[in-house]
């Protein structure tokens, strides 16, 4: 029998650590939940469309309204859309992630989440599944905003590498947005959490060099933006539109994404474990 050939007595090798059913099901369960999340785009487009349309409107409106900021001495580009397109992408990707938090609140309120927790799905899959869905949404958002940006005049300054860093930053923000959204959904269990998800993300993204570079801004915002890790993520996203892609402009963003994602993931897992019947 096959099972006998794998036992320690027959092979003489050390006994392999038994794999739990839950551990085996981790990946398929995550993919299943991710697919459900993506299908919700078709079932409930009104929940996804704002996260797609708002970054487009924002990138177009900001680049038009603030067209003249490129005339400020020291501004790193002569195309305002090059400056605002990555901001729009990160905004859209963040809200794609936070949208998962909204969906989870709805699932908790409708009782679907209780039924989900009663199934033998591993706990981590409840977080990783929606994260996969959010990454798929972020892919759509980043690609769409980039294409619209190209039409209205955005140009990559270091070829495809600049696009790669834009996608990395977008996926990173989508992931940390998902973890944050899920953690608050588990804590609050109702739509009160939704307002906090949006507000905190909005503050984190705008208390940076979102509108003008650090070298141009003055006053209190300069002090805040300099230490806000989201400034590094924006730098990572923007570098391919402002000049060459360099390691100096890359590592800070990667570290910020890794650190914030780790913290928010830990917060999400701890909040999920606290979720009681």
């Amino acid at each position, binding site marked *: 029998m096959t099972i006998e050939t794998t036992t320690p007595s027959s092979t003489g090798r050390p006994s392999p650590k038994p794999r739990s059913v839950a551990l085996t099901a981790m990946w398929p369960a995550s993919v299943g939940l991710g697919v459900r999340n993506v299908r919700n785009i078709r079932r409930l487009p*009104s929940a996804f469309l*704002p996260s797609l*349309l*708002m970054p487009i*409107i924002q990138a177009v*409106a*900001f680049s*038009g*309204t*603030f*067209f*003249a*900021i490129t*005339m*400020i*001495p020291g501004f790193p580009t002569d195309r305002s859309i090059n400056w605002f397109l990555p901001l729009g992408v990160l905004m859209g990707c963040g809200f794609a992630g936070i949208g998962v938090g909204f969906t989870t609140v709805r699932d908790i309120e409708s009782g679907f989440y209780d039924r989900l927790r009663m199934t033998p799905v591993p706990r981590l899959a409840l977080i990783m599944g929606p994260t996969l869905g959010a990454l798929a949404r972020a892919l759509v958002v980043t690609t769409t905003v980039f294409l619209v940006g190209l039409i209205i005049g955005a140009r990559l300054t270091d070829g495809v590498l600049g696009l790669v860093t834009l996608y990395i930053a977008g996926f990173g923000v989508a992931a940390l947005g998902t973890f944050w959204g899920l953690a608050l959904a588990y804590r609050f269990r109702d739509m009160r959490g939704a*307002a906090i998800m949006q507000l905190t993300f909005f503050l984190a993204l*705008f*208390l940076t060099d*979102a*509108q*003008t570079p650090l070298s*141009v*801004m*003055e*006053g*209190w*915002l*300069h002090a805040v933006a300099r230490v806000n890790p989201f400034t590094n993520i924006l730098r990572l996203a923007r570098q391919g539109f402002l000049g060459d892609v360099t390691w100096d402009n890359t590592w800070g963003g990667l570290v910020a994404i890794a650190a914030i994602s780790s913290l928010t993931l830990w917060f999400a897992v701890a909040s999920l474990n606290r979720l009681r019947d």
Partner: protein
Amino acid sequence: MTATFAPTTSTELQPSLPAQTWQMSKRAIIALARQPALIVPSLVFPLFFLALGSSSFARAINIPGFPEVDSYLDFGVAGAIMQGVLFGSVTGATALATDIENGFFDRLIASPVARPSIIVGRLAGAMAFGAAQTAFFLVILLPFGMNLEGGVIGGLVLVVSGTLIALAVGALMSVMALRTGSSEAVQGAFPLLFILLFFSSAFFPRETMSGIYKDLAGYNPVSYIIEGMRDLVIEGLSAWAVVRAVLIPAALSVFTVWLAMRSLNKRIARG
């Protein structure tokens, strides 16, 4: 024993139209005051954006085409007021849509209340909030260095302007509430207001824009209202500033209130 109840005529007990409207207005204002979570964002976010702009665009005031101002704060006040009033006006219309959703509106229609007071009451609530928002922004920003060249009278004109903008936009949003009967649909108008605001001279002067953006801002009435309000702040009181800050929203109000009344009659006729 037979008891007979003499029917009272409705005209004996029915309050006058102004009294009904006042009661409906009071209800709208109290409802707003009881839900700070609904009104705080439209007070805080414009100030937050203005604070961001004052820091981010401090050097932008030297760009050719910018009017002569001491700081971006002075330039941005009018945009902040417009932003706050635009977004605040959605709140009243959302409440009207919620009334329709939960059946309160139907009960109002079934009662002998005068039809105009339903809309006028709501709009009076929106106007009171618009006036309070404008006064709040001015009072908060003065200690932060805002220089109001128009003085006290200029400030009062700004409050009147904020009130009329709230009326015009509140009536427009009420049309949406009456036609759809859905609070979600009214909230969905947010991107429309965002576009109205950002494709105007709310944050940067039209003179610094180019191409299609400049054209769109030129066609957008919001630009002219904001420029009138801005002149009251950075240049002082003038007839031309008052005309743009007050008469344009007043004219828009006449049109949007007419639209709202028409939508109300259509909804009642539909049953």
